[in-house]
């Protein structure tokens, strides 16, 4: 392995640990971020010349700690006092046992519900994921300076508002963990089906990063069902990535995808996670049910819609939102015919009229029922509301294909 590879690998595996350790030791996310960045810059300079250290992680932590101490010494008294005011609060009082990993503290702090969702996403990608500010800015189509300011503001709020640097107490853990999973899933879906019209339709860098972070969280909290479920859901969705967009840049529906292009390793890993959750005997949450649905879709030659409907029934009991009901209607249409599906879909019009997916589903069902004029109008409504380029291309072709 050459120094470049070693550095890339260390960045992937050690960044979060280095930041988390520094944040705990120095009580400041700012110092932690600067220290980690400096240690990796030093490594980029030294490793090619001096060789790769035997334990890259330890080398990076030591270097980051040393440069941070130097930095604090260099600061004037006034700045030091300012630093003091910027401390994050290490106020853990209860024994946390196996889950007291500094990286978990870092994740929970970055995903704190008192921060705006876009700040949580940006901070998580920067502090836990180690993406650079320009990389995050590009992913969300904003200026570097805007993204930099967003992250700076979030760090300032953490310090000034006294957001603690700790894993929440057991009583708060399920709700807070659900918040973390929401952030990770948001990063994933933005990568999997970009919402903007000006980006690539599928952005691996974001979905890949979300999987990496969720895998890390799953390793830290192996017994948490929803974390395992979310990881499985991401793996089973991402496994179909290469088959999802055609060479013409069109979204390919599930039943038309070339299954030979699916990533067998990801599917196997996702199925194993779903099986382990089933074996646990615990009642599944939202992500576990979505993962199970995707496991059915990726099992055998075609989806077993009876099973899919049963799983959506279960999901709708947990989360009776219009989107879940729309997806359930799609499964009903596959099981019982387009007519049955359309009745359910039409009932959702008041809630989903502004959502392109609603019109796309209606269009498809109307097409199957040979209601060509209505189908055309529905495709047109869907195209007007959709932004993802691959999705628009697919919908346009379907509209053209109508007699």
């Amino acid at each position, binding site marked *: 392995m050459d120094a470049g590879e070693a550095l890339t690998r260390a960045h992937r595996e050690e960044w979060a640990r280095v930041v988390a350790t520094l944040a705990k030791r120095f009580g400041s996310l700012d110092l932690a971020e600067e220290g980690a960045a400096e240690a990796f810059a030093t490594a980029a300079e030294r490793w090619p010349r001096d060789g790769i250290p035997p334990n890259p992680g330890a080398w990076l932590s030591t270097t980051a700690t040393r440069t941070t101490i130097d930095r604090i010494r260099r600061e004037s008294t006034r700045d030091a006092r300012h630093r003091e005011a910027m401390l994050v609060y290490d106020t853990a009082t209860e024994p946390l046992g196996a889950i007291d990993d500094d990286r978990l503290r870092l994740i929970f702090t970055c995903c704190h519900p008192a921060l705006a969702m876009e700040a949580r996403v940006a901070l998580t990608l920067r502090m836990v994921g180690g993406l650079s500010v320009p990389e995050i800015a590009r992913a969300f189509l904003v200026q570097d300076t805007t993204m930099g300011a967003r992250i700076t503001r979030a760090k300032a709020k953490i310090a000034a508002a006294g957001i*603690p640097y700790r894993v929440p107490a057991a009583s708060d853990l399920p709700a807070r963990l659900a918040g973390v999973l929401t952030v990770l899933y948001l990063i994933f879906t933005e990568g999997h089906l970009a919402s903007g019209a000006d980006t690539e339709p599928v952005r691996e860098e974001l979905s890949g990063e979300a999987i990496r972070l969720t895998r890390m969280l799953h390793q830290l909290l192996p017994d948490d069902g929803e974390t395992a479920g979310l990881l499985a859901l991401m793996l089973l969705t991402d496994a179909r990535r290469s088959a999802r967009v055609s060479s013409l840049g069109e979204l390919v529906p599930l039943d038309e995808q070339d299954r030979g292009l699916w990533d067998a390793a990801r599917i196997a890993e996702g199925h194993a996670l779903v099986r382990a959750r089933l074996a646990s005997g615990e009642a599944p949450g939202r992500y576990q049910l979505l993962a199970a649905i995707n496991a059915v879709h990726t099992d055998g030659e075609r989806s077993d819609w009876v099973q899919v409907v049963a799983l959506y029934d279960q999901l709708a009991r947990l989360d009776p939102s219009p989107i879940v009901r729309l997806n359930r209607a799609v499964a009903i249409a596959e099981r019982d015919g387009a007519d049955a599906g359309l009745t359910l879909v039409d009932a959702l019009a008041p809630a989903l009229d502004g959502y392109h997916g609603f019109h796309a589903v209606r269009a498809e069902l109307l097409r199957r029922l040979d209601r060509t004029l209505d189908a055309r109008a529905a495709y047109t409504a869907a195209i007007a509301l959709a932004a993802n380029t691959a999705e628009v291309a697919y919908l346009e072709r379907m509209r053209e294909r109508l007699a």
Partner: protein
Amino acid sequence: MQYLINVIDSRTNSGTAEEMVAIDAFNEKLIAGGHWVFAGGLADPTVSTVIDNRGETPVLTDGPFVETKEWAAGFWIIEARDLDEAIALMTEGSRACNRKLEVRPLLAPPQYPGWMPARP
């Protein structure tokens, strides 16, 4: 840390007797837990007066500094370990006073030498 909690309201004199009972009980709990610093209700924003003495002569203006649909009808100042504790306490407070609350940290005392927080 200390936090200012603004009680957000949109109607004047809207408090009910039941709410007062719930607020009293909540305050007793804040005091017992060592979180109480100060609290008070505020008169309607329309009876406020704005003073501007940054220029040559003081200028008085009738009414609030900014016209809004929502305003602070009262406030607490509490002592809490961190934002999580403040949020946990005031989630209960919001229920007790039946109002939305804004939790806002007070700047740390070292930045204002000589500033001493009031204690009950």
